């Protein structure tokens, strides 16, 4: 039985379709990622699933409970961490945690084992006001508060936005641990590199899911051979690659450019072309596409 089951869910604001006919299932204990830029509809989807807003049409069932009709029961079994830091800034770390524990009819002691790994990072600061914590610590406190009532399904809306890479990595390690305890987790993020860590991901744009699959399947289904090209003048390289007639796409990707070329062309031809343009230290090697490569390809196809 699936933990979350969504069927043809839609929601519009005025004339804008924030969520357009979205369907998916998440199994128990799965870590499901929703990847997409701001404005793709991630927050709307989360609010629908957490019973905060009503859908225009379609339905969603969480642990067998309908989000519209059984909203009160749904609220008892889910944990939710909204996109913005939504704790009381003028209460201390400890006061926030105790407050949310009580609101959810439990005590910190009862479920301490669940949050111990996360909370111990911030415990030294338990008498500090939440508003005075750093970004990474705020996230940990918010996650502790969302977990304190031992929810069956955890909804995390962009928990790592604006958080530095180190804290982000720590945060994801915590999510993987929670997953191993059998909690279903639905998490959204604008960072493509975090997608790798999910069991399955949905790539989202303009209120629609472009694709739902495991990261491996998504990258494996990339239809072209992908080349990483480097040279001495990286900025000029991108323009010259774009100008090349048999280059299909070219994007800068950190230290290299990721390039796809026509089937009739070859890496050797590309090397020769760049040499004639006066580049030195040319490096061209075939690479495995990343989720980001796939997402960009889908965005391009979607736009056409």
């Amino acid at each position, binding site marked *: 039985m699936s933990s979350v089951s969504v069927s043809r869910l839609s929601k519009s604001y005025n004339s804008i379709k924030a969520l357009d006919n979205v369907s998916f299932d998440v199994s128990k204990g799965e870590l499901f990622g929703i990847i997409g830029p701001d404005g793709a509809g991630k927050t709307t989807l989360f609010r629908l699933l957490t019973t905060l807003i009503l859908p225009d049409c379609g339905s969603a069932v969480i642990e067998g409970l309908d989000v519209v009709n059984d909203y009160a029961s749904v609220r008892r079994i889910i944990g939710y961490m909204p996109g913005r830091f939504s704790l009381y800034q003028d209460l201390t770390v400890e006061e926030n945690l105790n407050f949310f524990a009580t609101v959810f009819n439990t005590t910190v002691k009862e479920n301490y084992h669940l949050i111990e790994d996360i909370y111990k990072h911030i415990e030294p600061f338990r008498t500090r006001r939440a508003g005075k914590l750093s970004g990474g610590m705020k996230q940990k406190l918010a996650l502790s508060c969302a977990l304190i009532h031992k929810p069956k399904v955890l909804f995390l809306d962009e928990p790592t936005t604006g958080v*530095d890479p180190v804290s982000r990595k720590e945060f994801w390690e915590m999510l993987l641990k929670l997953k191993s305890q059998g909690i279903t987790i639905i998490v959204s993020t604008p960072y493509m590199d975090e997608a790798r860590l999910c069991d399955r991901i949905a790539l989202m744009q303009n209120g629609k899911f472009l694709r739902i699959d495991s990261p491996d399947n998504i990258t494996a289904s990339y239809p072209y051979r992908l080349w990483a090209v480097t040279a001495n003048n990286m900025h000029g390289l991108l323009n010259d690659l774009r100008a090349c007639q048999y280059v299909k796409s070219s994007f800068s990707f950190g230290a290299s450019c990721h390039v796809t070329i026509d089937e009739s062309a070859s890496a050797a031809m590309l090397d020769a072309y760049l040499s004639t343009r006066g580049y030195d230290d040319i490096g061209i090697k075939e690479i495995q596409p990343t989720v980001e490569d796939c997402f960009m390809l889908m965005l391009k196809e979607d736009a056409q």
Partner: protein
Amino acid sequence: MTEEYVIQAENLTKRFGDFTAVDHITFSVRRGEIFGFLGANGAGKTTAMRMLCGLSRPSEGKGTVAGFDIGRYPEKVKRNIGYMSQKFSLYEDLRVWENLRLYGGIYGMKDREIAEKTDTVLRSIDMESERNTMVCDLPLGWKQKLAFAVSTFHNPKIVFLDEPTGGVDPITRRRFWEQIYGAAASGITVFVTTHYMDEAEYCDRVSIMVDGRIKALDSPMALRNKFGVSDMDEVFRMLAREATRKGD
């Protein structure tokens, strides 16, 4: 002071009570350079950037931006820099051209100059047809493009970008970097913070701040070689792991 450097910081320090947010940082940024300013949350990036923009007075040390001392002439510094944050400093309820006119006016440009510049800018970012559109009706990527154009509208010598690409899709993010390259090629110095480590690779040089100090400063390639790793993400993680400071 050498003509070549547009930002120079010497032992720049900021203390709040007995807490040293920025601890004697020294670095220089060349004209036309894209300078990445990285660091974990709470490492002191924002405080340092505020001092360089003339918004906050240094407790100690010296800083020169666009040839003016940041402690003594913050107003002159402000006149010669552009600033763009993640929140895009655009007025949502004004039209595209009205936003440009407003910023031109704020920096004391003449009406005719504003009109001419508006035409060139809109052409260069491919938004001529959107001249009369309300900013709130623009897609996120376009707002970002416009916000950058606004921050460089008064031909500043330096533009400070505070996490300019947060939350935008990967294609838009790359287009934005191309816009940054264009500005740098025209001689504008770009000072940028980001949490995307692949973007660190696009910078000419990057500095990484840990606990209020600059722990590393070099070109991305040199840093990768120095630490013997394959990408900036790992460089960053190796350095940030040493941090003792938690929270701010």
